[in-house]
């Protein structure tokens, strides 16, 4: 009996002691693994969705590719993990993914109590309403008593309730888990209106309703939705790498460096800002713990912010979104990269 107790105590001690095994910088883990694991949307055209060949495309996807380009010099070294709105925070918290780049709104609670660190928004969005033209509604203020379809597990649910309360309107919210089912319910006429981020509504209107011209997005934008990638608390180096990867893309646009001209610019550049960004003048890569060509690789392989915007969500895509808030700071937008120096 005594022998057993000793053994049991030993087992218990080992079990409890093993808890400290977790931790260690993300960058080392990523390098050892040989790929970045990136949490993305299960399928939202323009942001993250697989194309007909099965390659992931979208501005959220491009952030992940850019991080892989910065770390490995190869934008293909990414494993994409599609996550539902409900899974996403837990997947990042539990270490299942290294980056969450899945049109996630930056809020105080998520930034603090949920243990996330948001890098910088890659799309400034706002919540709107999609309705059928038949309904004869011109403004969201006329939606008193309306039934509104909304996806569960998003900040959208709370914004919706807040807006109706603030305007003393009666709300009937039908909350459904999967995006496809919300779309189906809206198309079937279960709801008068569909609420989500305006960019997402544009994507749904373009791709998921039978006749896009029968539907309009109401002019009111009822919330601020800065969509930003995020990483876990407790690894500042990894936080810096993802953040500055995005800034490199934004700076690239500001200085006119594109994937097409980056080789020429690298040879001929005289602007010290550009030289530091592309690693012609060394130092920046070392500061991040990366190769000096990190910035060059990002722009060469993925492109600058304008390129990814135009290719995925811009006016020439089915989403037809204008730059608006997402223009550079010196063109009336909010995209502002701190100096690379």
């Amino acid at each position, binding site marked *: 009996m005594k022998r*057993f107790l000793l*053994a*049991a105590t030993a*087992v*218990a001690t080992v*079990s*409890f002691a*093993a*808890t*400290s095994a*977790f*931790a260690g910088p993300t960058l080392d883990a990523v390098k050892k693994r040989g790929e970045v694991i990136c949490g993305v949307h299960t399928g939202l055209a323009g942001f993250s969705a697989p194309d007909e060949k099965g390659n992931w495309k979208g501005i959220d996807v491009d952030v992940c590719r850019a991080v892989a380009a910065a770390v490995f010099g190869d934008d293909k070294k990414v494993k994409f993990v599609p996550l539902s*709105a*409900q899974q996403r*925070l*837990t997947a990042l*918290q539990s270490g299942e993914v290294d980056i969450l780049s899945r049109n996630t709104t930056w809020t105080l*609670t*998520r930034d*603090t*109590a*949920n*243990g996330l660190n948001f890098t910088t928004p890659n799309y400034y969005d706002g919540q709107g309403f999609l309705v059928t033209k038949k*309904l004869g509604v011109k403004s969201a203020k006329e*939606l*008193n*008593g*309306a*039934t509104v379809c909304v996806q*569960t*597990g*998003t*900040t959208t*649910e*709370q914004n*919706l*309730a*807040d807006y*109706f*309360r603030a305007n003393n309107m009666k*709300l*009937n*919210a*039908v*909350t*459904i*888990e*999967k995006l496809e*089912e919300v779309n*189906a*319910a809206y198309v*079937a*006429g*279960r709801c*008068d209106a569909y609420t989500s981020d305006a960019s997402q509504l544009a994507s749904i209107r373009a791709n998921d309703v039978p006749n896009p011209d029968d539907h309009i997005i109401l002019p009111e934008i009822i919330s601020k939705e800065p969509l930003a990638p995020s990483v*876990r*608390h*407790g690894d500042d180096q990894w936080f810096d790498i993802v953040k500055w990867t995005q800034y490199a893309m934004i700076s690239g646009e500001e200085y006119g460096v594109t994937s097409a001209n980056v080789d020429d610019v690298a040879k001929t550049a005289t602007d010290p800002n550009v030289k530091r960004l592309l690693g012609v003048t060394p130092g920046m890569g070392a500061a991040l713990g990366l190769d000096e060509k990190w910035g060059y690789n990002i722009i060469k392989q993925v492109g600058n912010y304008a390129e990814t915007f135009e290719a995925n969500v811009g006016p020439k895509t089915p989403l037809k979104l204008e730059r608006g808030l997402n223009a550079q700071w010196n063109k009336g937008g909010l995209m502002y990269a701190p100096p690379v120096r």
Partner: protein
Amino acid sequence: MTEPKKGRSGASFLNDVRVRGIIAQIVVLGLFVGLIGYLVSNTIHNLEVRQIATGLGFLSREAGFDVSESVIPYSPADTFGRVILVGLLNTLKVAVFGVLIATVLGTVVGVSRLSSNWLVARLATVYVEGLRNIPLLLQLFFWYALITVSLPNPRQAHKLAEGWFLSNRGFKFPWPVWEHGHTLGAIGLLVAVAAIYLLGRRASRVQAETGRRPNVLIPGLAALIGLPTIGWLLGGAPTAFDVPALTGFNFSGGALVSPEFAALLLGLSLYTSSFIAEIVRGGIIAVPWGQTEAAVALGLRRGMVVRLILLPQALRVVIPPLTSQYLNLVKNSSLAVAIGYPDLVGTANTTINQTGQAVEGVAIIMLAYLTVSLTISGFMNWYNGYISLRGGR
């Protein structure tokens, strides 16, 4: 078989089968406790490392999101705790109706499968094999799509009668405005039910003493109808009804059966009834035919044969698997979130997402389901014991 004798010829006590059995059990138990302890401490440690908030404080914070239907009054200004309660009550609502409908349907279909009528028996077979072999989630999607797509929007709603509307927003019907008279009527109904129970017991006693069963049907019906009516009349005979009317986008007033609730209830009860039908059929077959013959030979009428001979014996076979089906129905109701019915899982999931406290949220969900399931189990086990054979009679 020769058992090894203890303490003989220097053999270690470890060779004793009983001692080894005890040691094995203690080791397994120790490993189990160690594993649970490891998981708990590891979780707490990792939550701390990642600076994720813990504790149940979030339950008293404002929820700030709407739910489409609720048994108790709810607004987005209420707390997360209340919205989880709203979800739990919605789960219980669909479970109670689901269990009742599934039991009735299942019994009818199960008996029908044994019918000597060829068509009835075959139809019952098609019903059972069709419903129990299609995944429940698909059935739910089917019913939900059928309801939302096939019914018109509120402005073109089917008007069944004045104030009775059927549209893709659900089934709207008039509902009495609750007044004092209704409360008294409800009390009358409770008194009537109690009176019928007592009448039935008295009838059995009289039958045992005199061999004649006094008629309880007439006084029972009289109590059932009369007492609530008297209560209602005493309360001033209120007749005001809240009648639905089309205002703006939708109907206001009256009571509502939402498409989500209807689809979930339909899916759950039909699916479960197909299993219950088989259980009932098995239960009836399990009673030997000789029992019926003997009862008939004793001169019992058909109804009495079923009530006194067949049913009590069949129930003993039926109750344990029936309990499992009730538990399945309750747990399957968590598929509600797929079609937008705000059940416990749906509201708790939103809460988890808004607060980020997944561990606490999931623990609450599990605890709630465990409590509901154990309550059902406990009741059914008690009922099973109540109807089972008792020795010494």
